[in-house]
């Protein structure tokens, strides 16, 4: 539908932003931020992913159901991570091997 066609400059703008983020994440990896390095890397990846999803995959301007579908998928993946962390993060607390 021509009404939904995004202007070309959006695509090229997003592409340039993705390139900039790539440069940023590679440079950030060489700076010692302590444990924050991982979060910076994942944060930049999340920002890149958001750009791709919103503009290249046309979620912006689509029906509202699509973001709901994506977010529910991510939510259940988060549950998997959360409960794995609950197990592996607390394994040593009791001080009894195997418990």
């Amino acid at each position: 539908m021509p009404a939904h066609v995004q202007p070309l400059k959006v695509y090229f703008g997003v592409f340039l932003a993705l390139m900039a983020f790539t440069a940023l994440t590679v440079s950030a990896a060489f700076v010692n931020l302590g444990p924050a390095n991982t979060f910076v890397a994942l944060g930049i990846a999340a920002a890149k992913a958001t750009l791709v999803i919103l503009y290249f995959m046309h979620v912006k301007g689509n029906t509202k159901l699509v973001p709901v579908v994506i977010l529910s998928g991510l939510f259940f993946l988060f549950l998997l991570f959360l409960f794995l962390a609950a197990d592996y993060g607390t394994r040593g607390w009791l001080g009894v091997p195997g418990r």
Partner: protein
Amino acid sequence: MASDAHGTPLGADAAEHGHGAGLAHHFDSYEQQKDSATLGMWTFLVTEILFFGGLFAAYGVYRSLYPEAFRASSHTLSIQLGTFNTVVLIASSLTMALAVRGGQTGKGKLAAALLVLTLILGSVFLVVKGFEYHEKFVEHHVPGASFHFEGPDALHAQLFFSLYFLMTGLHALHMVIGIVLVGYVAERAWGGAYTSENHNFLEGTGLYWHFVDLVWIFLFPLLYLIGRH
């Protein structure tokens, strides 16, 4: 995914309902057909998120348990090749997005050309990946009997490389499927199969391609960029 909603031959069904070209018999309108195709494709991609998510979960568990082994192993990967491939893949996403735009505006030939470009960029990615794999074989970094690693924690370094090959291998498999799909869609686009009303299969292939790009956007920092300082 959206194959049902696309290019259904104009059979008797369509004629009976007075449906237009490319509108399947059980849909009332192009809009309903397009919305169904989009929702179906996204639902499929959600299953893919959880499919890769299981591997990411395993990665997270072992990286948190053995950070030193993961750091040392990550340093043996080529950051230059990884960055190069990231750029290539993002560029292929751009050409794919422009190809879909070509479909939206009814420019089939332009879409086909951009799809071929996408296909070439995807192949470049795989070739580079092949060189990286080769290097790992030469260095005995492939898990198994001949695995050898000079580092503080070789046992758990092997876990890193197992996950590295599983995650990038599964990603590469998705790339191969994507390349086949893109080739098919390019041919159809050249033949004028996609109209501005119905280019759902092209759009769905685009979503799939971008998804494969998304996976790499996360794989790259997690595998290549651990503690480079």
